[in-house]
């Protein structure tokens, strides 16, 4: 079987969210000697791009998209080590959490899942987090991107506190910062010195990808 037909089988399985089938195709492609990089670019990333487009077009819906994202996350468990082995640049690491005194996590978790779907290694820190927790996580996981979520006008300023704490720790420049949540705006994101704001999970993936390719 040709490599391209395997890649299209991988794509198909991923778009359909059939994880078992997806992993089977990936293993057989690897056995046939297909490069991990090719599997990722022509199979996985292409499929997730299609999923994103179909979602926006109203041809796919969240429960289906999440299935694909979860399958993607499983696929990346296999592919990521191989990419690292052969020195290929991976999508990187994304750390996300909800700020202090804020317990809202539905949107944050969706963003985390979508970022997994985009191929990132995701560390989800949880809710109601002290600024220090974000600082420690940046030190520990060395993420490319840090995401913060706040759903309350009263907790939004905490995102600024985290950025200050990162500055104080001297590591603000090591990470891109993206923020979101219902009361957050583009303007506010700029005010506190975040790099990017995204209004929803789908936009988050687009903006992050744009940012990564600009970097």
């Amino acid at each position: 079987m040709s490599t391209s037909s395997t890649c299209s089988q991988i794509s198909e399985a991923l778009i359909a969210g059939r994880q078992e089938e997806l992993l089977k195709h990936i293993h057989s492609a690897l056995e046939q000697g297909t490069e991990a990089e090719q599997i990722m670019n022509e199979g996985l990333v292409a499929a997730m791009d299609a999923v994103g487009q179909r979602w926006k077009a109203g041809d796919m819906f969240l429960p289906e998209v999440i299935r694909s994202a979860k399958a993607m996350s499983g696929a990346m468990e296999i592919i990521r080590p191989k990419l690292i082995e052969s020195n290929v640049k991976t999508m990187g690491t994304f750390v996300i959490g909800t700020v202090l005194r804020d317990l809202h996590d539905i949107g944050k978790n969706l963003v985390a899942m979508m970022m997994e779907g985009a191929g990132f290694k995701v560390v989800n820190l949880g809710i109601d987090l002290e600024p220090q927790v974000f600082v420690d996580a940046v030190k520990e996981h060395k993420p490319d991107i840090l995401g913060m979520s706040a759903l309350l006008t009263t907790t939004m300023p905490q995102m600024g506190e985290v950025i200050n704490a990162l500055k104080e720790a001297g590591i603000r420049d090591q990470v891109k910062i993206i923020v979101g949540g219902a009361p957050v705006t583009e303007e506010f994101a700029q005010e506190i010195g975040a790099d990017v704001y995204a209004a929803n999970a789908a936009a988050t993936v687009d903006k992050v990808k744009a940012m990564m390719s600009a970097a």
Partner: protein
Amino acid sequence: MVQTMNQTVFRGPQFRVLTDSQIERIYGAAIDVLETVGAQFHHEEALDLFRHKSDAVVDSDNVVRVPASLVERALRSQPRTITLQGRSGKHLLRMIPDEVAFGTGSDLPFFIDRTTGDRRRTVRRDVCDAGKIVDYLPEYEFFMSHGIVTDAPNPQTYDRHQYLAMLETCTKPMVLTSVDGEGLNDLWRMACLLCGGPDNFRMRPQFVAYIEPISPLNNDRTAVEKLLLAAEKGIPAMYTPCPSCGATAPASLAGMLVQSLAETLMAVALCYLKQPGTPLIMGGVTTVMDMQTTTYSYGAPELSLASAANTDISKWLGLRMFSTGGCTDAKCLDEQCAAEQMTNLLYAHLSGANLVHDVGYIGSGTIASLDSLVLNNEMIGMVRKFCAGINTDDDHLALDVIDEAGPGGEFLTHDHTFRHWKEWFLPRLQDRSDWDTWTADGSRTIVDRTREETDRILAEHEPEPIDPAIYSRLRKIVKEADQRHS
């Protein structure tokens, strides 16, 4: 004289979503959840109450499971009626089954600016304006802040500033959100100043405390702290689950109702252990997560359906109900807005819920709009007319009038018309004129007329002022809170 016998009369249209047997199934399932799954509590006193004052089981991960017997004892201790009173004593709001009151929602972060038409952050002034509108408009019986005071000196005391702003312009009973137990205690102290002390407050509470669990089946420290304080002081509380089907609750409405009911009953049990008889109002903004946008939908038909089902359950349990209506996912006053707000207003009323809140919300619970409040007043008027049903007594059957007019006669000049037409709904903002009149008047839409009415109310209405001596004591409580948190 002939007397009529064995009549059954509808005082309004009859509406139900669930039969008693369906409710029994949902209740049975909720009890099952309480006995086998349980709910988590992040609060020591609550855990101790369950451990030592009841036969509940507290597992090592702070998950509490309660038996049906406790739940049913707790339910029996619930008052069947609660009466709220506004600060001036003029507005009473009695909650008994199938008496429906409408009110706003709270805390919206954004506000449609009336000069620019744009979205901006809500400030104190906006909450005062919303209060004025609610104070003036006859179809609103209670007030929630509509917007959130974002210009308070400290986010940790915004609730006191917000209550004071609400009190300045509104004399109707209120439902209040609070930061934590300390905040709620201050709000209660403020209300006690207005009604003459804790005993009076207990008899005629000035407000209901709005509190929420975290679906699924989780109770955070501040929520429980508020619940226990409410029980201690005799503050009526609502513990309203906000599940979004498919995300924090099953996607099937019945499953969501089971889970929400379990959450509510857990709070009923806890309040009972703290202080039997604590008035606990059932609630919920029960809706679906939109699977295209991820929005928590305020305009979905499922919201109306699930809220009405919850109201059926509340009546069966003997609890009062805090429901949702007059809200939309639309971002401005457009056709979608009117369609969604009207739909959920109508079904909330038909269901017979006691307090229907979030009236006027636009933008899926993120945007406040004064015009939306004014327009909803008109829509509630229509809904209320419909829900008043049809009177079939002799005067209304009008046999003699039909007889007098006879075939080919007329009714316009008849006394009966003169007496009865005022029972009809009288549109104030709707347009029923002919094309020529409408175009000659500038082809104005209902939104144009609503804006003018909002302007007029803001300019003309003067709410009854608060006694200056009491006002300065209220301010003192707010100031002291600011000092504690500075």
